[in-house]
Every structure is written in structure tokens, then in C-alpha cells.
């Protein structure tokens, strides 16, 4: 059982510089952020403020230029990567939800979710059991054998959420997960994320511009000019 007192994510003074010399751009200038297990926080800011850069750094997709990042108390970056295998780090510790579901088109619904545990070495049967359990929790169990192309947009997004949770990661990064959805469906996705965060004790960071869902966050990080400012959200029921 994970230690609930240890934050799922802790970021201190995170910096990211693109380029060098006169053309260098500081996308992140010292970001601080802490997210507890079971918590869903919003990350909002205008275009070019550094949201995606922060997400990519947190997702171990690009290397920061400095600072420190911890996941579940373990330093993954401290002025340099502390984990040699970043793919394994992403696979086991970070779930991703994208603006579009980006499911693997040639796999059916169950295998889209089961693929992650399988990549982590879980046996096929156990991985599919886990996938079916998650699909049931997200109300798409009836589509378990369907092809991705046969799903509605909302169903695809729920399968994508199930995939993000498949390896029970402590961190889930959601990049504009409600952008293509109407109000009702957007709020439904937030309800699901809140429920999953509570049920699976995952910290979820939701990058969004969506005015419909911003009032649902209890905590919000505003990012502007590469720096974050924390503020309390309204925490409305979605």
C-alpha cells in the first residue's frame, strides 16, 4: 500500500529552456507543484504559457533544464534524470489521457487497455481481466470486444481513461481531455476522473482551457510566463 502522506507529485524549481544563446526561450522558469494521491488539480493558462512543456517534463518525454521532480516520493529528476529507463518510468508510473483518445486502431477495446499491463510483463489473461474490470468501472464493458472505430467519441474517451489507469499509476496527466466534448459529456468525464482518482488513489493533473470544467477543481495551478501560481478552486460538483 502506497504511503498516502507522500505526495504523488512534487515539483520544485523546474526549469526548461529551448535553444541556446540569443535564441534561447525559457518555457519554464521555476515551477513548483505538489499533488496528493486521489487529488484532481487543474492546470490552466494561455497558449504558450508552458502547460504542454510542463506536461512533457512531468511525462518524462522531454528533459527539463533544471529543478527537481518526484513521483510517489522518488526523485525522478534532480538536475538530471535519476531513472535510467524513462519508458519503464512512464509505463509503470504515469498514465496519459490526450485531447483525442488516440487509441490503437488495430486493437479492440479490451486489448487497448490490456496492452499496458502486458508491456509491463503482466500475463495476457491477468492483463485482460484488469482491462475488463476497468472497462466495467467506466461503463464501457459492453463494448469490450468492439473495434475502436465502432465507438462513439465519449466511449473512446472512457476507454482512453481506462488505459491510463491500467497499470495503476500514481500519476495521470490529462491534456485537454474534454476539449472535443459538449458540456454534459465534459462534466461526465470530470466525474469519471474524480471517481477514478478516489478509487485508484491516483493524482490527476488536468491541463485545460475548458471554462465548463474549471469550476469543478478544488485546486488550480495557473501557469503564466513559465511560472505557476496556485489558487483554490470552486470545487463544484460536476
Amino acid at each position, binding site marked *: 500500500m502506497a504511503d498516502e502522506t507522500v505526495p504523488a507529485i512534487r515539483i520544485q524549481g523546474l526549469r526548461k529552456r529551448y535553444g541556446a544563446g540569443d535564441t534561447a526561450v525559457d518555457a519554464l522558469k521555476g515551477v513548483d507543484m505538489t499533488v496528493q494521491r486521489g487529488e484532481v488539480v487543474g492546470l490552466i493558462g494561455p497558449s504558450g504559457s508552458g*502547460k*504542454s*512543456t510542463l*506536461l*512533457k517534463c512531468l*511525462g518524462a*518525454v*522531454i528533459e527539463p533544464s533544471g529543478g527537481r521532480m518526484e513521483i510517489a516520493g522518488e526523485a525522478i529528476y534532480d538536475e538530471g534524470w535519476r531513472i535510467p529507463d524513462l*519508458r*519503464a518510468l*512512464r*509505463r*509503470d508510473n504515469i498514465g*496519459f489521457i*490526450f*485531447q483525442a483518445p*488516440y487509441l*490503437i*486502431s*488495430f*486493437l479492440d477495446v479490451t*486489448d487497448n487497455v*490490456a*496492452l*499496458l499491463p*502486458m*508491456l*509491463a510483463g503482466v500475463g*495476457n489473461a491477468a492483463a485482460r481481466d484488469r482491462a475488463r474490470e476497468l472497462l466495467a468501472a467506466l461503463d464501457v464493458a459492453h463494448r469490450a470486444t468492439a*473495434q475502436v472505430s465502432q465507438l462513439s467519441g465519449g466511449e473512446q474517451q472512457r476507454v482512453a481513461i481506462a*488505459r491510463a489507469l491500467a497499470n495503476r499509476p500514481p500519476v495521470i496527466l490529462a*491534456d*485537454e481531455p474534454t476539449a472535443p466534448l459538449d458540456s454534459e459529456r465534459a462534466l461526465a468525464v470530470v466525474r469519471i476522473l474524480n471517481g477514478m482518482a478516489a478509487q485508484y488513489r491516483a493524482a490527476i493533473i488536468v491541463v485545460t482551457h475548458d471554462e465548463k470544467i474549471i469550476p469543478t477543481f478544488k485546486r488550480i495551478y495557473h501557469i503564466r510566463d513559465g511560472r505557476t501560481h496556485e489558487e483554490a478552486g470552486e470545487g463544484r460538483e460536476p
Partner: protein
Amino acid sequence: MINLAVRDILHGWGKFAFTGVGLGLLIGVTLSMAGIYRGMVEDATVLIEGSGADLWVVQQGTLGPYAEPSSLRDDVHHAIAGMPGVAAVGNAAYLTMQVGHAGVESRVMLVGFEPGRPGEPAFLVAGRPILRGHYEAVADEKAGLRVGDRVRIRRHEYEVVGLTRRMVSASGDPMLFVPLKDAQEVQFLKDNDTLVIERARTAANPAFNRPGVPGLLEAVQASQAQSRQVNSVLVRVAEGADPEEVAGEIRRWKRLQAYTTAQMEEILVAKLIATSSKQIGMFLVILSVVSAAIVAFIIYTLTVNKVREIAVLKLIGATNATIGGMILQQALGLGVIGFVVGRIVAGLWAPVFPKYVLLLPGDALRGFVLVMVICALASVVAIRAALRVDPAEAIGG
């Protein structure tokens, strides 16, 4: 672990199958080219084996009778027949020409032979052997003739009395066997106008038309109107005799060239069809390169169409080996489909080719390995492209 390559193939099987069939047709052409070369070698071997000879005696300094013109007097065989180690001899005349049947001209190799001696058709698949001294023929079935058909050769009509099989020249023309005398006549026969002109020219030559030598002019003119030449004497050596030794004796004492079976095969394969085999070799190289380019292009296109999915796979932790393996397996899968289709179509269209196409299992195996290697190499470009995909592409911004 899920086999991603198989799932992707099954998901888009129509596109994959059509691509495989297209590649298969190309591989079929490649296998057929190899089959044509094998067929040429086989034809040459059958030509030699089917003649029933151990030695070919031809004019000195020639590679005759199949590769170069050779001319011998038709009584030379008497002298050869008396040599030690010789069991049987037979004169043979060869001539490639057009023959007419039912208003259709076709190209054949006319073979003049002496029944019961080396050089006669090895076996018949229909009809009977030639029994009469003139105007009967045995045809290879590839000539499209049937027993009872009448074939026009120069001035005379020949009745087809028998059919044989797999008796074709080195260039693939079916053989038409006729009595030696007929073949000699066909080979050296001049038309009437030419004979009249030749006689007049001879008569005008004082050396042949001497007033004091009666009969000389007639003798010279008679010699010009007939032929006693053959192209080769085929020799069967006695049991226990060494063909090489007998050939050596003929070369030494009769001042003629004598080739053994091995030497004749060498002439046919290494010299006569050498240019054709190089031509086919070039085609094989070009077709292999084209196949590789097509596979590379197809696999690259399939991969590029999956860039977003590859980025997602990388982001969620799939290793390079998993992604590279998926692309490699797809390329090999395409190769397997292509090879199976290619082998099937090559077998189906082989009988339609005018030349004999021999598809050997060994060539098919070599072809399969080559296809797999080409597909593996062709997938390298796509694998490199896939490995360069940035997982960050899955995240916006």
C-alpha cells in the same frame, strides 16, 4: 503479449492482401525468370540425353552441331564406325527453319537422322517411328502437330507419323525429325532458277567444259545439285569404353573434333545460352531491386500512417524492440504472402510460356530466403522512421 503486427495486418487485411498479391505477381515474374533459365538448361540437357549419343563428331575448329555450323561428308561415319570403342554411329543434320501447316507457319529445328542409329528420337508419346525412307516426320508435341497432320517443308509434304516430347533446340524450337536424306535435300536444295543459273555459269567456265573431256560438265553439274554433307556424326561408345579416350582417338586420327557429353553440355550451357542466362540474371537483379523498393515503400507508408499510434506506443512504454519487431514482422508477412502468391501464379502461368519453365523446389527455397532478406532490409527504412518518432507527438502543444 499481443502480437501487434498480426493485429495490424488483420485489422487492415484487405489492403495488406492486395499489396501482397501485387508483390506476389512481381515475385511470380521473378520465379518465372529463374524457371525460364532452368528450363533452358534442362532443354539443353534433354537435347543431349535424348540424342542417344556419347560423342558428337563435328568439323574441326567448330562447336557444332548445335552451337556453330559444322559440315562433314556423310561417309565419314564409316571410318569412325571402325575405330576401337565405337559401338554405333549415325549421321545427323540440323536446320532451323519455318514449316507450314494448315496455313500457319511455325519455327522448328529440322533433324535429319538415320533410323536405328544414334540421333533418332529417344521415345514417342504417340504414333509410330519413321518407317519409310522419305516424307515421314516425327514432331515434338510443342510444335502443335498431331499424328496424321501434313507439314509442308520446302517443295514436299511430310506426314507426321509420331510425336515425341521434350525434344527442343537450345533456343526452345520444337524438333521435327525426318529421314537424313530428306534433311540433306532440304538443307542444301537450291531452287530451280538457281540451278539453271548455276548450270549456265558452270558450262561457261572452260575449266569444267573442256571439249576433250566428255562427261566432265555433267559430272560437275550433278555434284552441284546434290548434297552429301551432314552436320555431325553421333557416336555411341561400346560398353566399358571410355568416351574421352575414344574422342581423343577420333580427334587424333580422323582430324575431326569430337565432344563428349560433358563437353557438349558445357558448350550448350556455358556458351550457347550464356548470353540468355546473363540477360535473365540482369532481370532477376532488377526485379529484386524493384521488389525491395516496393516493399520498402509499402512498409514505410504503412508506418508513416501510424505515426500517432507509434508515438502513443512509445509514450505508454513500448520498447524500440516491440515497435521495430512489429514493422519487421509486417514486412516479413508481406513477403510470405507475396512469395506464396508468386509461387502459385508462377506455377499457373508456366505452361502458357512458349519456352519450357522449370520451377525447381531449390530455386523456390532460395527465392523465399531472398524475399525474406529483401523484406527485412526493406523494413529498415520504416523501422528507422518509427524509432525517430517522438513520443511527445502524442501530447499536444
